[in-house]
């Protein structure tokens, strides 16, 4: 066999090898593409699970609040009305009219309270009212109970962050508020919602007992860990800073323009 013939054999073998290599690259690309797609699906599925969990927790917390409200407020007022009406026997007409008027006002107040309560019973109110109004309603409820003095401020021009993001943010807020009420022994709580084009901040600062930063990882700090996990799911970052005796500050920072796994352009839940 001549040298040129040998070269032909070699060239053909090399071209074949090159083609196999090319095919191998195509196959590897397909494997990587499918793996990325699968991870994306798992992320999406995890997100849906946490979102559903958040919905359930918001509902559970709302029911606890409603039950407390009925027990502490409505039942008390209704008992007072019942007592008031029972005392109308054997009194003068003027006094009777006074008690009836007083009872009528109290019934109106109860109706009003029940209406507010019924609104907060459904998860849909976050969707309807938006994050600010929902937080405002919660702040009013706590302020009325006199358990804590909350000051709410909103800076910047507010916009919708998307239904799902707002639900998760509300759940973080609810958890932070609960922690303050249960453990902080605080008298004042400042809530600040900051809206700008590139950034959204939810800041909660209390004047309670505070805690050492090491406690965040420990058993007591599981609520704070939960908040961080939830925030990460919507692309937000939670920063918790506290010193013993100097209160606690929780800041949730979010870039509203950033698209996350669940957020696609046509989805109504995407940031608006």
């Amino acid at each position: 066999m001549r040298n040129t013939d040998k070269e032909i054999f070699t060239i053909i073998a090399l071209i074949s090898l090159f083609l196999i290599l090319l095919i191998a690259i195509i196959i590897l690309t397909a494997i990587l593409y499918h793996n990325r797609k699968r991870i994306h699906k798992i992320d999406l599925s995890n997100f849906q699970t946490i979102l559903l969990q958040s919905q359930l927790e918001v509902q559970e917390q709302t029911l606890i609040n409603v039950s407390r409200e009925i027990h502490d407020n409505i039942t008390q007022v209704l008992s007072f009305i019942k007592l008031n009406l029972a005392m109308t026997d054997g009194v003068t007409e003027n006094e009777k009219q006074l008690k009836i008027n007083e009872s009528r006002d109290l019934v109106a107040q109860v109706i009003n309270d029940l209406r507010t309560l019924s609104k907060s019973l459904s998860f849909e109110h976050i969707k309807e009212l938006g994050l600010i109004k929902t937080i405002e309603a919660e702040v009013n409820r706590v302020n009325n109970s006199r358990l804590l003095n909350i000051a709410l401020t909103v800076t910047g021009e507010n916009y919708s962050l998307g239904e799902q993001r707002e639900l998760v943010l509300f759940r973080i807020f609810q958890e932070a508020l609960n922690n303050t009420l249960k453990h902080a022994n605080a008298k004042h709580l400042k809530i600040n919602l900051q809206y700008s084009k590139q950034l959204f901040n939810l800041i909660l600062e209390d004047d309670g007992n505070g805690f050492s930063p090491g406690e965040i990882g420990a058993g007591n700090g599981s609520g704070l860990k939960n908040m961080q996990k939830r925030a990460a799911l919507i692309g937000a970052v939670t920063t918790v800073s506290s010193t013993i005796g100097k209160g606690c500050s929780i800041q949730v920072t979010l870039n509203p323009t950033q698209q996350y796994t669940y957020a696609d352009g046509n989805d109504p839940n995407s940031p608006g």
Partner: protein
Amino acid sequence: MFILTLSTNLIALNLLKHIMSLFYGFYFGVIAFAAVLSFIAYKKGDTKSLFILLILVATLFAEIATLIFKDHKILTSGFILFIFNLMEYTLFCTYYLKSSKNSKFKFGVKLSIPLFIAFGICTWYLKYHFNRPPVLNIDVEGFLLIIIYTHLLFNLDAAENKAIHIQPNFWIAIGILIFYGGVFVFVVSYPILRKIDPEKARIEYEYIFRSLNIFFYICIIIGLICAIRTKKYLPL
């Protein structure tokens, strides 16, 4: 000295024949095993496996017939290869049509079947005059199947949310891509190589073609095992 050289050559020739027969035994065994698996997969409810079964049975017939005809000089292997080529392309396309959900691409594949048959008949008549192996047809078939199965590879059913390597179509696609990618240049250059050195061309053909063939059928076997395992866990 001459007798020693002659006997050494004879021993080497016998050994080569023996290896070749072992090789053929293994080769046919792999195809037959794949055929049995495709039958089991079909019986378990994986209807697509019927087309793989038909391809494997046709392959076995074509391979055995080629050997017989070659030994008895009844017919040239070109005729068998021509019929097999058309059948194989049609069946692989049908398998793709049953596996894919992309209607536009499916329409293209459906259209390609009669066009390929027409092209095959014309080429075989005009270029190969009904007797030579239709190498161009095999290459066109390979080229089209590479495109079709690359599409399938990138569009595997992700809704099942499972790893890619446990999906039967992944292995079928890999087998087709590697096999046709590997033989593409060799098939078209085979007539030239045969003119240069017929013996070397034949040996290279045996080793390259058969090795890639075995790899191809092993991929099909893995794919069929995946299909059988998937069907095993599905509710009846």
